[in-house]
């Protein structure tokens, strides 16, 4: 069906398809959070590489929040706890409004996501002493070939188990667990909102609605 006939009373209907950068960063971050949170061993080369990759994804999304099209920009979903509470109230009564971008509760969750993700990345950088995956790989190769000096340098870099390192380790752990909890909440939210709005909310984040 042509768009004008399906469009509802609201001036700007929610996106039928998120733009590709939003989709790519969304699934990329989802993949890294799951992989690094549940599968990879902390400190391993894969773990550090994915951490750097997710830093790039987060930075891209933040740039896109300023430069992107309307519904990707921060201005389209400002953090507003009052509106978020109102939205959750509407959700309980089953009569939800439609928003041109994220709903207010979702917007809050997104800012929480980004904050936690940034915290995980920064603490991860502290833990590795800011070593890039290339350096981690080189150090591991050196250790494997019997050159233990790489280990010494690592210890010099962060002065053994300094208080900063311990705090970072704890924060890294807590923030990444919170990320996983938030991800579970997010999935539940998509399900509940989709039921309440009678609308497929997953399709716009994948390939859009199939034209029937």
């Amino acid at each position, binding site marked *: *069906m*042509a*768009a*004008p006939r399906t469009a509802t009373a609201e001036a700007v209907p929610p996106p039928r*398809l998120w*733009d*590709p*950068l939003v989709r*790519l*960063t969304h699934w*990329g971050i989802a993949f890294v959070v799951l992989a690094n949170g549940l599968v990879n061993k902390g400190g391993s080369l894969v773990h550090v590489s994915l951490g*750097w*990759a997710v*830093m*790039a*994804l987060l*930075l*891209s999304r933040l*740039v*896109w929040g300023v*430069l*992107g*099209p309307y519904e990707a920009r921060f201005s389209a979903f400002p953090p507003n706890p009052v509106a978020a509470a109102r939205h959750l109230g509407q959700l309980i009564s089953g009569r939800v409004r439609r928003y041109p971008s994220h709903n207010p509760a979702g917007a809050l969750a997104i800012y929480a996501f980004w904050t936690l993700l940034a915290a995980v990345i920064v603490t991860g950088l502290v833990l590795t002493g*800011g*070593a*890039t*995956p*290339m*350096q981690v790989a080189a150090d591991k190769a050196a250790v494997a070939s019997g050159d233990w000096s790489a280990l010494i340098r690592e210890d010099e870099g962060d002065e053994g188990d300094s208080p900063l390192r311990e705090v970072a380790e704890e924060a890294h752990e807590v923030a990444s667990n919170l990320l996983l909890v938030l991800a579970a909440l997010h999935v539940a939210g998509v399900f509940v909102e989709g039921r309440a709005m009678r609308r497929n909310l997953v399709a716009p984040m994948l390939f859009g609605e199939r*034209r*029937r």
Partner: protein
Amino acid sequence: MTATIEPRAPDIRSAGRRQTAALSAFLLVQTLGTVFFVGDVIGDLRKDPTSVHFLFEAFVTMALVLGILFGAFALRRTVELLRAQEQALDVARGALSEVIDRQFRSWGLTPAERDVAFLALKGLDVAEIAELRGAAQGTVRAQLTRIYAKAGVSGRAQFAAYFVEDLLGQGVAA
């Protein structure tokens, strides 16, 4: 019910989508590369802050970051252009159906006849129109006959051609 004849629009749409998807993927790879590079530069800097090397690396970093920002801006323009085109296409479709509706009224078609005529223009056959409208096929056939008579055309082919000719805007060559 409009699925019978899809215009060529989806092709333009999916081509545009592929293009923006490719641009986005490229932008992400570019960002990834820049982040790794900057990480390496910072590492070098901590090892040897006085190196002249750093000036060059700072220049390259700046170029990479500017490239990303420009790429993001260009991508946004592309996404918005694509949307504007889709919207224009929808408007054009709306305009065409307005033209058709006005013509139907000028022929003095009744509301029921206008409905049937629309469906006929969309390429539905008598059985399909009858099913959609919950009417007998004989009724639809009689309505179509009256429509053709009011429009002064010989049959369905000429009826459809009436509107296509306006769009083509040129005489038949040869």
